[in-house]
């Protein structure tokens, strides 16, 4: 594609991002991670609120695929893509857990990924939030009891926030991230 074509394409496309939905309301403190009003994600423990205050509207996200079917990955890519644009709320995907504030885990935890998951969470500096995205990460979903499965994310590391759905809608992932950035 020539530069002129590219410029024309950019001009024709304009803004793809959908208008920002209102900021997710803070539900009363103490609501468990899995008991969100819309079923997508809870306000999380008071710990999430405490982390949010320390992050000042900026959350770097490290994604860990603990044994996912890649359905959640497609939705996650959509959440950070131009339409949902999670980056406008201050969340950004990073390449290292050392840079991250949020460890976003997708999929059931398989035997080979149990230790790497524990190490990744341990390598993330405090204050941090562990987010389980998708039904598999929450409660093993359709893979419950399968031979290679150690358990859900909550069985190995403490989970602060979770997003339901198989796969979860990008909008729900964005809502969960906005609860961390507070924007």
């Amino acid at each position, binding site marked *: 594609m020539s*530069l002129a074509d*590219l410029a024309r394409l*950019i001009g024709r*496309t*304009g*803004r*793809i*991002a959908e208008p*920002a939905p209102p900021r997710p309301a803070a539900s009363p403190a103490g609501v468990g991670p899995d008991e969100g009003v819309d079923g997508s994600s809870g306000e999380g423990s008071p710990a999430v609120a405490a982390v949010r205050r*320390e*992050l*000042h*509207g*900026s959350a*770097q996200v490290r994604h860990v695929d603990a044994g996912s079917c890649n359905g959640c990955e497609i939705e996650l890519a959509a959440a950070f893509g*131009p339409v949902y*644009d999670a*980056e*406008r*709320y*201050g969340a*950004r*995907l*990073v*390449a*290292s857990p*050392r*840079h991250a*504030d949020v460890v976003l885990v997708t999929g059931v935890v398989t035997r080979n990924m149990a230790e790497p998951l524990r190490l990744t969470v341990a*390598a*993330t*500096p*405090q*204050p941090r939030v562990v987010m389980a995205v998708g039904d598999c990460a929450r409660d093993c979903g359709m893979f419950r009891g399968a031979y290679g499965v150690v358990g859900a994310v909550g069985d190995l590391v403490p989970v602060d926030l979770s997003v339901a759905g198989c796969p979860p809608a990008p909008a729900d992932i964005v809502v969960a991230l906005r609860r961390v950035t507070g924007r």
Partner: protein
Amino acid sequence: MSAAPLLVALVQVTVAVVLAPLVIGVTRQTRARLEGRVGPGVLQPARDLRKLIGKTPLRAAGTSPMTVVAPVVLLTSSLLLAALVPLVAALPLALVPGDLFVVVSVLLVGTVAIALLGLDGGSAFGGMGSSRHMTIAALVEPTVLVAVYALSIPVGSSALPLIVAARRDHPASIASPAGVLAVVALAIVVLAETGRLPIDNPSTHLELTMIHEAMVLETSGRDLAWVDLASWLRLSVLLGLVGNLLLPWGVAGSAAPGPVLLGALALAGKLALLAVLLATVEVAMAKLRLFRVPELLAGSFVLAFLAVTASYLVA
């Protein structure tokens, strides 16, 4: 020795520290808009920095004191660079000459510090990033030296403040063949030195393509804040230098408050313009394959060399 140049240097450092996160914010925001996204706003890098300064770093087991020292050394070298390069005012410091050799040495101190930081983490990617970074540094530094040398021949001094002041007073020299060649060569090496496309991709997640990012993979919390601020400062200062060489108007000639304020505003304008331009060019460009990078940098060296030849032929 009067205190005026020192005061101006202090003002320059302050202005650079304030502007550096905004420059990164403007490039990311421009990029987001061109990609059809809304973008996080130009203040987002400043928010990231504020958060990182509050986070306690987590250092890998078995690291040496280098992990603690290197980010501070890198930041110090960038702050020193902001004081030496004529950004707001073209007043030579009597204490340390804003000489091209001094500037290149200060750049190199930062480069070595971050390369050691990459090695110290002990991860494979850190060492790979350091190795690539040193390869590029070895190709970049001669070009910086030769390009600034070409600019210094008509002025008769290798001090950057005097070069910028001479270009401001004699605008005809900006469009001279030697001047254009040298500035183009300098612009290419600035992109290489600060890890921008097409040499390095600042937003990559693929470890195998990383250069700068690979070295800081093991850095966290406050350490990362210093490394980030230092590399943003480096980009802003070098962009500011290119801006002041291309458009030397507005650079203060004295330490009076009026011209210095005007100089700061002019610098902000030039940096905003260059940041938007940089982001626009980056959207239309892919990263070069690593083994093609030396060809590009050799090309920029040839331009710088031609600039020296041309300035001798003309002068």
